[in-house]
């Protein structure tokens, strides 16, 4: 029985909106790539900007 304001499917593993990036191969790829490019940019600006 579902009480008002509670949706059982919202709490089930793998079904939440936040999991789109891990359930889809392309979503996972995109998130990892964005994170990696961000980290690369940070490394560049912290350590390497002075180099030619």
């Amino acid at each position, binding site marked *: 029985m579902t009480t008002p304001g509670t949706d059982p499917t919202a709490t089930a*593993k*793998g079904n939440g909106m936040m999991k789109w990036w*891990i*359930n*889809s*191969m392309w979503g*996972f*790829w995109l998130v*990892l*790539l964005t*994170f*990696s*490019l961000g*980290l*690369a*940019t940070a*490394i*560049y600006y912290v*350590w*390497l900007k002075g*180099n*030619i």
Partner: protein
Amino acid sequence: MFDFMIAGVQAPIFLLVFVGFTVGIVGGFIGVGGGYMVTPALIVFGFPGYMASGIDMTHIAGKGLVSTLRHRQLGNIDWTMALTMVAGTMLGVELGVRTLVYFKNLGIAGVVLLVTSVVVMFSLFLYTQIETRRSHRQLKVMRTEGREMGRELHTSSLPKFFQSINLAPIVRCRTARVVVSMWVIVLVGVVTGFLAGFLGVGGGFIRVPALVYLVGASTHIAVGTDLVEIVFSGGYGALRHSIEGHVDMMAVVFMISGALFGAQIGSIATAYVRGPAIRYVLSYSLILATFGSVMRLAYVLTGQKVEWLSLIAVMLTLGEMIFLCLFIMSLLYFAWRNKRGAWVPDWVKSLVIS
């Protein structure tokens, strides 16, 4: 920061160890030396271009040996295939280097090189990605139907054609379970060696797909066998570069220190995945390297005036190493979870061994 007295630069030790570690993981997993990632990274760190090539080649020889030992333990090396290919690879590399010198004397080496690397890498990416997705779809269907899945599945019909070439002597590659004309293997060595010598790379990203799609070896065998070639070509490259004065040994030592750990993770990870997983990572590596080359080519063709193109090329080079490393470690993590019966995404289940 460390003062490299031979290279004449100061560079952070942490970054060299980090690059060695990430490229070690990638190299151990997909069987590449990683030169197309490491050389631009070393240039960005401040090393002169010719030293970046020399340091990279020398470190590849050492790192390749670390990975080869682990792959030997996993049974991923077909020694017959490896030793048959070596002479062809060396000959191909020498021809490639001479062709490069010819274009250099004409004054157009830079553009020709970049265009060639873009064309080769993009073509390999397209073929590998399309074929791997087809294999992955079939594996998903088989898993749904509850059928037994082996370690490897590929859907290319090219190996059948090359294996049907009846030119003596015929070699039996027992570990790879392939019976093929020796000349096919030598030809693969010559062509991949030529491209490697011309583009100034180890050649793994060309040789692994060639062994899979032309000779018909499984991806794991292609990775392990290719690493043996990389040890030889890296060792020869290290000798030549050292004589030319292109090597700073401390930079090599720092990178191998990182590669020690990375190569172990990458090589051992192959035991937990199926062939298509390795081919996916290889194809991602190719497309990201292609974008980096396109940016550099665009920067050269616009007369080196559009600075952000050069910046994007640098971001892609560093970002590519980190991305591939994270993807491989994710696959390893998912394989571990899958084995324990924990939740993993659907697309992973047919790529990892349970």
